[in-house]
């Protein structure tokens, strides 16, 4: 038989964007150690529904650590204590009977709370919309093998592209900086031969949008990398800084269209 545990949860409840929130305390019983953190929250939801109370709202979808929906800070750490693990992939065997767990939404000014643990992460989409793409109209592409890409470059691009856009990096950063997220996208696209043509334009536009959305600057704290469920490396921020500096210098001499 699997071991089970009883837990005390302190959960952030907030009716809507405009209301003030507060922590509520709940008990959950008989949580099996094989269930996931979100399944534990499902149990809480069912308990609350049983009592006619509203369950805790939280974003989630794939429950496989890939869609980037789930977003909650567990005992002070975005996505919880396990390294390189999203909240949905976190399993209860990492907790113990009688433990108190605090659960709150991402805390970052650019990500306002909509309800309970649900925040608005649309600024990330707008950063991508301003430049996080490689223009290629359907039907216009050359044969995929016409442009060889070294394995090292492809692997590096893939490391960067593994970002799931969850926002934990922003939540973990004392400045609410989005440099790790933006750096990952810029590094992915700027490193590929296909992405070179729009490199400067992309970098300048994405950084401008990022700043405009109210994300803070990077002061090399490194909390983002530690919280990132996909282990996106700080090197991506260095890459972004490098490409940004180059683009600015070029921009100084010749405005980029």
């Amino acid at each position, binding site marked *: 038989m699997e071991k089970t545990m009883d837990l005390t949860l302190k959960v952030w409840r907030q009716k809507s964007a405009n209301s003030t929130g507060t922590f509520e305390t709940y008990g959950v019983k008989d949580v099996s150690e094989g269930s996931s953190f979100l399944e534990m929250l499902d149990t809480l939801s069912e308990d609350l529904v049983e009592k006619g109370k509203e369950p805790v709202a939280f974003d989630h979808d794939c429950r496989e650590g890939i869609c980037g929906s789930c977003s909650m800070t567990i005992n002070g750490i975005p996505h919880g204590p396990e390294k390189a693990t999203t909240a949905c992939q976190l399993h209860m065997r990492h907790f113990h009977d009688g433990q108190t767990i605090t659960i709150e939404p991402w805390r970052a000014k650019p990500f306002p709370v909509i309800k309970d643990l649900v925040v608005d992460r649309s600024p990330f989409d707008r950063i991508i919309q301003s430049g996080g793409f490689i223009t290629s109209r359907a039907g216009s592409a050359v044969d995929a093998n016409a442009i060889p890409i070294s394995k090292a470059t*492809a692997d590096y691009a893939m490391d960067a592209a593994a970002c799931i856009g969850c926002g934990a990096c922003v939540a973990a950063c004392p400045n609410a900086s989005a440099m790790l997220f933006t750096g990952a996208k810029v590094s992915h696209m700027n490193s590929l031969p296909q992405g070179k043509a729009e490199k400067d334009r992309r970098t300048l536009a994405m950084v401008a949008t990022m700043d405009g959305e109210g994300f803070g600057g990077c002061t090399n704290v490194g909390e983002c990398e530690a919280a990132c469920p996909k282990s996106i490396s700080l090197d991506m921020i260095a890459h972004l800084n490098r490409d940004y500096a180059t683009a600015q210098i070029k921009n100084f001499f010749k405005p980029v269209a």
Partner: protein
Amino acid sequence: MNLDSKIPEGPLSEKWSSHKFNMKLVNPSNRRKYSVIVVGSGLAGGSAAASLAEQGYNVSCFCYQDSPRRAHSIAAQGGINASKNYQNDGDSVYRLFYDTVKGGDYRAREANVYRLSEVSSDIIDQCAANGVPFAREYGGLLANRSFGGAQVSRTFYARGQTGQQLLLGAYSALSKQIGLGKVKMFNRHEMLDLVKVDGHAKGIIVRNMATGELTRHASDAVVLATGGYGNVFFLSTNAQGCNVTAAYRAHKRGAGMANPCYTQIHPTCIPVHGDKQSKLTLMSESLRNDGRIWTPKDAEVAAKIRKGETDPNSVAEDDRDYFLERKYPSFGNLAPRDISSRAAKEACDEGRGVASTGLGVFLDFRDAIKRDGQNTIKERYGNLFDMYQCITGDNPYETPMMIFPAVHYTMGGLWVDYNLESTIPGMFVGGEANFSDHGANRLGASALMQGLSDGYFVLPYTVGNYLGKQGVADAGKVTTEHPAFAEAEANVKARTDKLLSIGGTESPRSFHKRLGHIIWEQCGMARSKEGLEGAIKDLQALRKEFWTNLRVVGDADGINPELERAGRVADFIEFGELMCRDALMREESCGGHFRVEHQTEDGEALRDDENFAFAGVWEYKGDDIEPQLHKESLIYENVELATRSYK
């Protein structure tokens, strides 16, 4: 119901090009006068919305997640097929076509499958061009692997995250168009009804899931790319929000639903662990390239393993039954999904299953590690092994993995013609939501291909053709002021109010679980007349109970996960009944549909081509009226129907 498939004349290999030539073009300066609604931002919807916007149409795109990048396509792991023949191992457009028709157990439409196979190469080019970091060889060329029972290496991949990378490619193309103002994106919006004017699809009613507001959206054409209905089983590998609502609402408005009983059960998922479980996790099928599947020969040994009294590693070679290798010597552990899943079920039915529930078989890497070394295996599957350990707590390098089949994909869906147009003119359906290309069973790595084929290369032409035929004078003529919108909105509102006011005692999740149990038991891996008839009665009773004893807490004015689930479960219950009817009607076994009455002496599926070589298309007739069956005959002019054998 008009089921004219509109397959173009001419030889198979020329159908698509001649059709493209014959289609009506819309003058570029007129395109901006038209608007198109795309529901869904997965591979099919995202690529369709981006491509239509690139062409100049005004697009509104909807998804229920908080960002289009989170559509369920993101979760696909293994890869995407294309007939590039980069490996020079004998692949061709014709071979991919042939494999797909055969893999689908001869229940797909030849012309569609050929087109899919034809554009598959363009997809890889397109994705590489927009920055998908496909795996590469040291020489810089694209790497391939063989996948899901194919005997050529035609699968392209990006580590274990192919779906993610393809979706991010489509998402970035979509994002560009959003940035340019050509696509208006509606995140956290759920489509709850389709609006028809003079028989044509002209818009949708959606609920803003963040504010609760119902809004009307009018357009000149509607594309549904809302994914599959696997969650009718409650437990599946699908994301939590995957639903049949958009498709089912369209069905109620007159769109034919084809082959709903064709569902795919994937053989390599992590077994169920308890009654609080919310989803099943797929372990990539690529594991079957090196892992060997077995159970003990003896049920008593299995029982001891289940109780933890016997260590599986201590079971002697002679006491193990590598049942796939035994039954299908030429394909072995790589036998297609439907066949592998059923074989695992049989072993468990004989009491030889492992895992605490008895519903599991071993996937063992012992021999592969001995042969190739742990490092090689780690390089190939490291991330999958880590994922397995993260979920189960077991280390697969030391103790064999346990797997069990789980619902994964749905081949059935809204009926579409060659243009991907449903029986409602002006409503097109792409991706997993339509029924078109995989027949009764889908081959691995072919869903991503189909989604992107529909979105990048088919819909942009065929939707344009429809709009062109309607004529520019009609563009934008129907507005949300039309009474049909008011009627549909009132409908949605009444339903939402009803859900909230039943005031019963049982939660939506509880109903969902009960529904899933019925469907899994009676319309899962093995189906029988008796079981299905019983299931239909049970589902009717469940529906009554749902509408009298449901409890939805909260209100309609903002985020309410209970209300969202309640609406989806209501549709799933009705849809489940349709699935069972379809399964009952189809008196044969084919692909993912196995009727116990129709099997060979050694337990293999027995097709009946004489009587069942058709797509079964259901027409909705009313809530308590039996739906009407229509048939599209499947005519095979190029492939000879044969018994699928993987022995």
